[in-house]
């Protein structure tokens, strides 16, 4: 379980981005965060991962206060974060990156298992460098794979659907559903996609740096489509291609 209490964060220039935000992600639940561009979702994810340090507020992981715990230690405690904009590494192969994520060397079959969850054929990719020759969709899937390789108690995916084609998207949804069935931890997905919103246990709308609405998908879908005033246009109905 993850609990955020009264989290505030300002940009280095002093502009308020998150304002007294409170959020609980219960064990074994899939929480989807949505909301307009620039609303503070990625900032919130970075605060959970320890990449940004909140100006005030507290963070608890399974009732342990991790407010002052750094990125490395949070990762070791089981927090994983799939970046909205994945980072590239010259000279590091896909296999190596996945092994670094898992913290161990892996037999090919295991790397294949993980890669297939993101719809990639391991044999075509494992020896490729995680450099700029990978396409946007490829690097995004590899980013997700690095997180799937870890043993996490809380995983945050930041717009995992971005740049991923419709065919792979279906299998990605299945991966998230499987994860939810098999997890003993929690999952947070930041997303604008209707199909991801629909598989949530709970949808949270973040706009203007705080939570504007929260609830079950069946109740929230209505709020999201009807109440543009609160949320702006913050999710896309299923696009074709």
């Amino acid at each position, binding site marked *: 379980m993850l609990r955020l209490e009264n989290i505030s964060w300002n940009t280095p220039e002093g502009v308020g981005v998150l304002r007294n935000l409170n959020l609980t992600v219960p064990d074994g639940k899939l929480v989807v965060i949505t909301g307009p561009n620039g609303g503070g979702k990625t900032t919130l994810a970075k605060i959970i991962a320890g990449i940004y340090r909140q100006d005030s507020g507290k963070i608890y992981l399974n009732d342990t206060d991790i407010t002052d715990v750094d*990125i*490395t230690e949070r*990762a070791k405690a089981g927090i994983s974060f799939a970046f909205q904009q994945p*980072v590239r*590494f010259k*000279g*590091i192969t896909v296999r*190596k990156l996945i092994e*670094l994520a898992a913290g161990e060397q892996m037999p090919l079959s295991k790397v294949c298992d993980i890669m297939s969850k993101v719809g990639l054929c391991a044999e075509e990719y494992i020896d490729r460098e995680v450099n700029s020759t990978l396409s946007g969709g490829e690097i995004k899937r590899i980013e997700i794979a690095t997180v799937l390789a870890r043993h996490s108690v809380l995983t945050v995916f930041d717009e995992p659907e971005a740049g991923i084609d419709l065919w792979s998207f279906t299998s990605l949804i299945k991966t998230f559903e499987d994860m939810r069935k098999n997890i003993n931890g929690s999952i947070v997905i930041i997303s604008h996609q209707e199909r991801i919103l629909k598989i949530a246990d709970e949808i949270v709308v973040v706009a203007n740096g705080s939570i504007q609405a929260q609830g079950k998908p069946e109740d929230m879908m209505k709020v999201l489509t009807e109440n543009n005033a609160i949320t702006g246009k913050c999710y896309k109905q299923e696009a074709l291609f």
Partner: protein
Amino acid sequence: MNEITKDLLREISEWDGSFKGAYNIRENGQCAGRVSSKNIKIESKKDQPGLEIFIAPGTKDETVSIPACVTQGGVDDLVYNDFFVGENADVTIVAGCGIHTETGEPARHNGIHRFFLGKGSHVKYLEKHVGKGHGTGIRSIDPVTDAELEENAVLEMDTAQIGGVDKTIRTTNAKLGAGAKLYIRERILTEKEQTAQTEFHVEMNGKDSGVDLISRSVARDNSHQSYHSVIVGNAPCTGHSECDAIISENGKVDAAPELHARDNDAALIHEAAIGKIAGEQILKLRTLGMTEEEAETTIIDGFLT
């Protein structure tokens, strides 16, 4: 052959008590073993220290190793090696150099290699340089490589110097005939007070010749590297060079690429990037559970492989 030489040989070549194929081992300026093969003849030069290596036309899949080791301070080894590669031969040349000193005296190896690649020949050239030992004496390795590639010859050079060498000046000159291709992969890591200077001069004189030069380097501590490449396109040709450097602590890197197009159909490209490790890269690896130091080492090791 002394024990230090054996250790150095293991690092710089495929030596495991013996070599596959023809070889010559140079130890402190002396020959410590030589074997020629049916197709690869190694002979001493008459007028200068060094070797003449004759690779017969059509030789296929053979390796020749010519490692050089300096195992003590006070040695200043200068050697001239010439390789004559026959038409359509396809071989691997392993030419590493190891320097070890336990004293305050300098130790240096200066290898001047000339390659004459016959028509259609293909050479893979591997060169690994290491510096070892606890002595304060300056370890220098100053290789000079001159290559002439005839029609459709291909030379692939793969060179690495990952720390340990205090001072190095590496000079590579090449002239390419029609259809000839030159591929260079260079990796250098300098640390402490080390300096490394790299000079490339490539002339593409024949139609459809091409060069691809990729240099990756890391300058740590107070070390200093400079990179200077000159690519001249005198014919319809393609040239590409890429110099990527990571600096950390007080490391300094100068990069000066030059492109000279002397033909209307010469297509030359240069890319250069110098900077410290991207903060995002460290953050990503930390989210996988690494410390900042572990992340840096992982990024640098990957970059230099």
